[in-house]
């Protein structure tokens, strides 16, 4: 339980708010590279502000405040040129740093353009997505977390959700929900609707633990029948501050990305890489991205797959969870710890320091490996097939290829073991 004041402090992300100032210290993915390849300019919304994101002919990216400083028309309907974006309304041209380079209807030799500047951020491509930074300079580096740079077959599912990003992040430090939402509830649905829910999600939690580290919080669970030597406890997986969760297992590596679009909207992206041991794959010509259905025609949540269940839990908490009427228990200590971590980083920013997980050292950013269990829930290779068939991947246009990738890899591993004997 929190006060209304503290709930507001932790959830408001717009410009000028404490949390908005903290969150502006990080890079965010706002589009798929494929989208800018198909059309070089689009409107994006981030942290309660609207931006025009564009790709120039030389492959560089730029991002400027959506509304032109001239007469406020949208630059998302602008003309992309080699050195920036030109407003479609009267042709004012802005460079990537926001400098006004041209005002074609004004007199030559006027200094007017020197007095006009568009607010600009930074934009770069990484791992098939376009990332932007709209905070103060000097800008940090886009963090090259392992999932974004590793080899494998990429697959991007996503959904725009009508809720605050923090309630989604709190789910990332809530291990017990797996045994209930994806365990007992899934089993209940399966019994009613005639499918078999994945058994590995139903294991009882004996204990959970949370450890703060330089990129967020590592979450651990000891499941019934397991020991502390098992991956779920010995390694765990992290919440990656302030808007991601690294998860995976059985040859699937994933970053769950929760981009705070505004106070009550979150772009949820399942950035997934399939690279099971023994698999053979070619470089992808195009990475499939696809929208996850999460409501049916009657407006009810679609809950017969893992992430649809999560989305139900996040969205039905309301646009911004009212934490003045929640009732936390001992099993929710991870949530309290996350709120503390946010408060600590709010204080760091207020004191003029970098918050955690801001990366500035290029040498440390070649590839940032994050801890993540391999033998998820002790289910072995079966976990991959269960997760794909009963998770969001069932909507992937490359589902059959991915299933084959994992089964072929399993056969290759078995053959290798046989050859060794």
């Amino acid at each position, binding site marked *: 339980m929190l006060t209304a004041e503290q709930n507001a402090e932790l959830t408001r992300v717009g410009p000028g708010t404490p949390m908005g100032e903290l969150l502006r210290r990080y890079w965010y993915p706002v589009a798929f590279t494929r989208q800018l390849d198909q059309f070089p300019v689009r409107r994006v919304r981030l942290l309660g502000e609207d931006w025009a994101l564009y790709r120039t002919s030389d492959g560089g990216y730029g991002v400027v405040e959506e509304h032109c400083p001239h007469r406020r028309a949208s630059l998302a309907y602008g003309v992309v040129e080699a050195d920036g974006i030109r407003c479609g309304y009267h042709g004012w041209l802005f460079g990537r740093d926001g400098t006004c380079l041209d005002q074609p209807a004004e007199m030559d030799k006027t200094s007017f353009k020197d007095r006009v500047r568009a607010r600009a951020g930074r934009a770069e491509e990484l791992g098939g997505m376009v990332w932007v930074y709209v905070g103060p300079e000097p800008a940090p580096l886009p963090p090259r977390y392992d999932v974004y740079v590793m080899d494998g077959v990429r697959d991007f599912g996503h959904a725009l959700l009508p809720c605050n990003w923090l309630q989604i992040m709190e789910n990332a430090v809530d291990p017990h929900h797996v045994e209930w939402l994806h365990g007992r509830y899934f089993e209940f649905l399966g019994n009613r609707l005639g499918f078999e829910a994945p058994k590995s999600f139903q294991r009882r939690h004996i204990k959970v633990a949370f450890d703060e580290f330089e990129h967020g919080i590592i979450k651990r669970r000891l499941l019934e029948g397991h020991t502390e030597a098992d991956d779920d406890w010995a390694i765990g997986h992290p919440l990656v501050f302030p808007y991601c969760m690294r998860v995976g297992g059985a040859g699937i590596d994933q970053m769950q990305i929760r981009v705070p679009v505004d106070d009550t909207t979150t772009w949820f992206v399942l950035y997934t890489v399939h690279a099971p041991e023994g698999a053979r794959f070619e470089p992808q010509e195009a990475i499939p991205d696809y929208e996850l259905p999460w409501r049916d025609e009657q407006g009810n949540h679609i809950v017969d797959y893992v992430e649809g269940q999560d989305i139900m839990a996040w969205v039905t908490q309301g646009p911004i969870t009212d934490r003045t009427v929640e009732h936390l228990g001992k099993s929710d200590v991870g949530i309290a710890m996350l709120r503390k971590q946010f408060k*600590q980083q709010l204080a760091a920013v207020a004191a003029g320091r970098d918050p955690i997980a801001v990366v500035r050292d290029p040498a440390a950013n070649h590839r940032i490996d994050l801890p993540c269990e391999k033998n998820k829930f002790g289910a072995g290779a079966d976990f991959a097939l269960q997760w794909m068939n009963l998770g969001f991947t069932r909507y992937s246009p490359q589902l059959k290829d991915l299933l084959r990738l994992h089964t072929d890899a399993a056969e290759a591993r078995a053959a290798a073991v046989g050859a060794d004997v």
Partner: protein
Amino acid sequence: MSDVPAALPAGPSWFAGDAERHLLDAPKHCPHCGGRLAGQAGLVVEYWVADDRVFYCWCQACDWTGTVIQVERHVGHEAAG
């Protein structure tokens, strides 16, 4: 400035009583350095363990983190059978 807000949550609500008790009972000062916890200076998250009301506290002034448990009744352990 009072630590008790002038406006407590409006009822009728099943939860209003707990929210009101939270506002009234949450620790206002750090047990370690005495710095303010109320408002934006620190954090107090309340959770429950059986009959205990547990206040998870973080102090911005000294970075102390700990729990404060409000005691309604002292109960000792049961002797081993």
